[in-house]
């Protein structure tokens, strides 16, 4: 072992979010990493800070018609529409598998009504998971969760009510499709969120000019990938500078350097989504990239950079 290795080993990559200890600040983003299982042969799940599983609903959902994906400049649009086996099957079939690995498990949930959210939170409170992530912002489902994330009153109500049923750390995931992300984040914090994650996808559309129809069967979908990074960094900064609870940043992260932008902006942890499709090892690469950066600048812990952005002027 040479000197560099030694130094790297001295770097503390651990972060704590709402009481959950992550071995490193990189979490696989919901909907892009299945239930971990699918990626297990490409990447050592033990090396990932956590996994936010595919968005769960109370009952099994089939999701939207295909095509469900379109490529756009430096991004993708998706309209999966929350296809998932339902929260109970998740608990029975997926948690036991996930628990074989030393990584935090976050259950991402979405409902058609606040009652559904509450019921899921209650069910999951006695499951072997580390935290619940409230998806109040999925743009791919017609009725339902969109409405909750768009207004201060919506986010307050859903956070407060779910909080009452939720015995696990509660992460509220925000939609970027709002005029003022700060007031939404503040409302979530004030209503009992233990942490905030952002951004979910930005509503977009791609048109097949030869068929003269939208590419996605669902017409619109959510934009993610490198294209959204500047918007995500901005919102992460805005939110982190106004709330006291931890912020998990995401949107277009595919390297350690990308992640550092979010952490300087105030994110305690990051999630990696679309990049997994391109590079199945993306989460580990991002974690290693963060470590390299810390090493280069002689930092001892990720906390040395979180929120350390200095504004110009």
């Amino acid at each position, binding site marked *: 072992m040479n000197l560099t290795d030694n130094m790297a080993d001295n770097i503390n990559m651990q972060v704590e979010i709402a009481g959950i200890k992550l071995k490193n600040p990189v979490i696989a983003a919901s909907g892009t990493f299945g239930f971990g299982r699918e*990626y297990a042969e*490409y990447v050592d799940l033990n090396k990932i800070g956590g996994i936010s599983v595919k968005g769960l609903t109370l009952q099994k959902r089939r999701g*939207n018609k*295909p095509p469900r994906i379109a490529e756009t400049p430096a991004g*993708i649009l*998706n309209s999966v529409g929350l296809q998932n086996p339902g929260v109970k099957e998740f608990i029975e079939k997926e948690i036991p598998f996930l628990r074989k690995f030393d990584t935090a498990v976050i259950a991402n949930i979405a409902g058609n009504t606040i009652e559904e959210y509450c019921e899921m939170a209650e069910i999951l409170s006695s499951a072997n998971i580390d935290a619940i992530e409230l998806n109040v912002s999925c743009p791919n489902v017609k009725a339902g969760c969109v409405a909750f994330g768009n207004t201060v009153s919506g986010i307050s109500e859903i956070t407060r009510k779910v909080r009452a049923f939720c015995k696990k750390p509660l992460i509220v995931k925000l939609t970027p499709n709002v005029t003022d992300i700060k007031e939404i984040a503040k409302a979530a914090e004030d209503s009992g969120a233990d942490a905030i994650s952002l951004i979910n996808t930005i509503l977009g559309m791609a048109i097949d000019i030869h068929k003269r129809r939208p590419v996605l069967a669902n017409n619109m979908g959510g934009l993610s990938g490198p294209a959204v990074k500047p918007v995500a960094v901005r919102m992460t900064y805005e939110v982190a500078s106004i709330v006291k609870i931890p912020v998990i940043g995401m949107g277009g992260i595919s390297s350690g350097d990308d992640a550092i932008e979010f952490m300087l902006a105030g994110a305690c942890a990051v999630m990696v989504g*679309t990049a997994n499709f*391109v590079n199945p090892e993306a989460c580990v690469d991002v974690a290693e990239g963060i470590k390299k950066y810390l090493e280069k600048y002689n930092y001892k812990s990720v906390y040395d950079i979180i929120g350390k952005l200095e504004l110009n002027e």
Partner: protein
Amino acid sequence: MTNSGAQKGTPLDAQPVGRKGVYPYLKRTPLDVQFTGGKGVSPYLNRTPLDVQPVGRKGVYPVVRLDALAPDIYLMRIASGYIAENALPGQFVNIRSCEGINTLLRRPISILRVDRDKGAFDIVFQVRGKGTGMLAMKKAGDTVDIIGPLGKPFFINESFRKIAVVGGGIGIFPLLFLLKEMQSAEKTVFLGFRNKECIVLSDDFEKACDSLHIATDDGSAGRKGLVTGLLEESLDNGQTFDIIYACGPGPMLKKVAYLAKKHNIRCQVSLEQRMGCGIGACLVCACKTKQGDDWDYSHVCKDGPVFWSDQIIFDE
């Protein structure tokens, strides 16, 4: 109910869920094989692929050659002992057409054939958009970042004596590999193309089968009309097959499935759908399949691309 292989209860077919199934072919699990010969050492070019250590089924492999077969149709030979040894007919590779962000997602392309001795495999692709366009600009010695082999292969059984293979357009490519691997059966092949100029690899198909029938939309080669017309005629003339394998455009597959059902022949079809991850995680590559009396979305990348035709609901 119907005549699918699954219904007939072949244990080898009914059982494979996800990637843990045991396939008779090559006497090993197609997708969970240990990474062995692959370790990047390609006897073909006698050097290790550049850049990246292959992990799982992901590797960076050198392009051996790129040939234009027809306007906008290219054959690429790629050196990968790992894929050559492990690929099964019907499987695909998921290729990154470039580094950087000019295209983001990988492109799924079928494996045309493998050369196990030389540790290489071939793909044929049509330039459709940016991704395939960039692939067509690769040169020998360049590398390609590939995940594969992926997906469920065609169901092959030594008991099949007479098989029919039906391909349309760029759907013909996985079928050549299938023909090559089914040494003992009597193989009748029906291929459909838009016109004479679009016909590629007909010599290879000729050699790999017992009788080859070609149809073109405009009659510039072979029979004028749809390839399913050829199949239908042959079936109506009393031809029988143990199984029909088909790959091509949706309407063609639907018709083949219908004919197979009508003539009580088991049939497998290989589907296409836009993909995100290619490995079953993102759930974008949905296709409608029967689940008992109900239906559900299966996923082309991991439940397919090859399905029993009577499991597919073709209405989308």
